């Protein structure tokens, strides 16, 4: 049996992480499924485990003037109870798994698991979230698109843990979240989408699209978004096909048990088109 420790404070967790590699265990709803073998057997973890779910000091949502601060061990259900949590993120959380899973699962866990189909990642990309990675020595604030470095790979080092998720306060004219899955509850996404835009003096001043489950990490293309800045809605609508084909060139969907390349490509097209139709 590997070493398993229920940590009592963030300080203790960081000090242990400075000594060796651990699996950081939050709600564990993904880790338990990934590591279990047969019924009734203890979970045979391959690395030592730090159980962190009960760290009260990481259970909070705090509102500042420009940012929202979410403690890493705040559950998804708890997030839904805060008025300050952005609607785009709440819409994604409401469609994640089921009440029983949302009552223990965390945002930090969804980030750490780094699945390309992680549903909370998609709105967090659109919201320009920052991930706070803390070690004994220092803390780094990593923009979400730099946090994910490859398929199921993050920028988190063995001595760091996610302690906070920071979301800039955005005021969008409108946002759109869509999840396409097989069942309403407990489904893993075939494709997920989070869009947001703002308009000033009849011109688009902010335009953001993030697409999940169509590449090794969530797709967010600042260069494509920039093409629409300063355009009127009419001009943007005329560019729709061009914009869609640019996005299609940056997705790399796969065939798996949940969906296939053709379906994921078509749905991506439809979702971008539907979002651009909401420009108003």
């Amino acid at each position: 049996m590997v070493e398993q420790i229920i940590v009592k404070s963030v300080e203790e967790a960081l000090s242990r992480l400075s000594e060796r590699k651990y699996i950081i265990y939050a709600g564990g709803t993904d880790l338990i499924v990934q590591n279990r073998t047969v019924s009734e057997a203890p979970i045979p973890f391959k690395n030592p485990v730090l159980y962190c779910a009960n760290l009260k000091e990481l259970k909070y949502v705090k509102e500042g003037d420009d940012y929202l601060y979410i403690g890493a061990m705040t559950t998804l259900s708890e997030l839904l109870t805060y008025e300050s949590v952005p609607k785009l993120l709440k819409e994604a959380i409401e469609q994640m798994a089921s009440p029983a899973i949302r009552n223990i699962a965390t945002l930090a866990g969804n980030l750490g698991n780094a699945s390309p189909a992680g549903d909370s990642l998609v709105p967090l990309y659109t919201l320009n979230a920052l991930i706070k990675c803390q070690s004994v020595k220092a803390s780094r604030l990593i923009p979400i698109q730099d946090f994910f470095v490859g398929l199921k790979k993050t920028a988190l080092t063995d001595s760091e843990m996610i302690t906070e998720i920071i979301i800039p306060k955005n005021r969008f004219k409108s946002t759109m979240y869509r999840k396409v899955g097989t069942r309403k509850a407990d489904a893993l996404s075939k494709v997920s989408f989070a869009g947001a835009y703002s308009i000033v003096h009849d011109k688009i001043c902010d335009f953001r699209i993030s697409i999940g489950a169509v590449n090794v990490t969530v797709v967010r293309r600042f260069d494509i978004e920039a093409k629409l800045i300063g355009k009127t809605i009419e001009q943007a609508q005329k560019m729709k096909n061009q914009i869609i084909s640019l996005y299609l060139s940056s997705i790399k969907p796969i065939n798996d048990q949940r969906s296939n390349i053709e379906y994921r490509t078509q749905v991506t097209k439809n979702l971008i088109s539907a979002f651009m139709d909401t420009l108003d």
Partner: protein
Amino acid sequence: MSKITFILNGKTVSVEGNPGVRLLDVLRNEFKLTGIKEGCGEGECGACAVLLDHKIVNSCSVVLANVDGHEITTIEGLKETSRYQVIRDSFGHAGAVQCGFCTPGMVIATESLLYDNPTPTEEDIKIGMSGNLCRCTGYQSIIEAVKKASEDGDGLW
């Protein structure tokens, strides 16, 4: 080895051993609380549902370590409450039980929902019960049962 202490059906209990075991196995094997069932084993069916601090969780997806210092209520513990009587009667009245395998989980989901929201809409009920699968009833009778429990249990939640 760790010592994990929690409240189980109103009584403080301690378990010494591997903290990386499933709450489901501890409840069934150590405490002989066999009302909870293992269905899918991966958090998708709700047959193993229990209440953690009065909120529904899947005991197959919770490790013992994470229960330390918390309160767990199983169907056996809930059975002692007047709210259970209302849920039992409403499930019986609506014909919401056939083979019975999912029923303990459905009752836990009902209690969790009504504790949080005593007057749910039909949509709230569907969301509240969305993590619990039933292969017999087709769900309509379960939705009716939850509605009836909410009406009959007026003031209990």
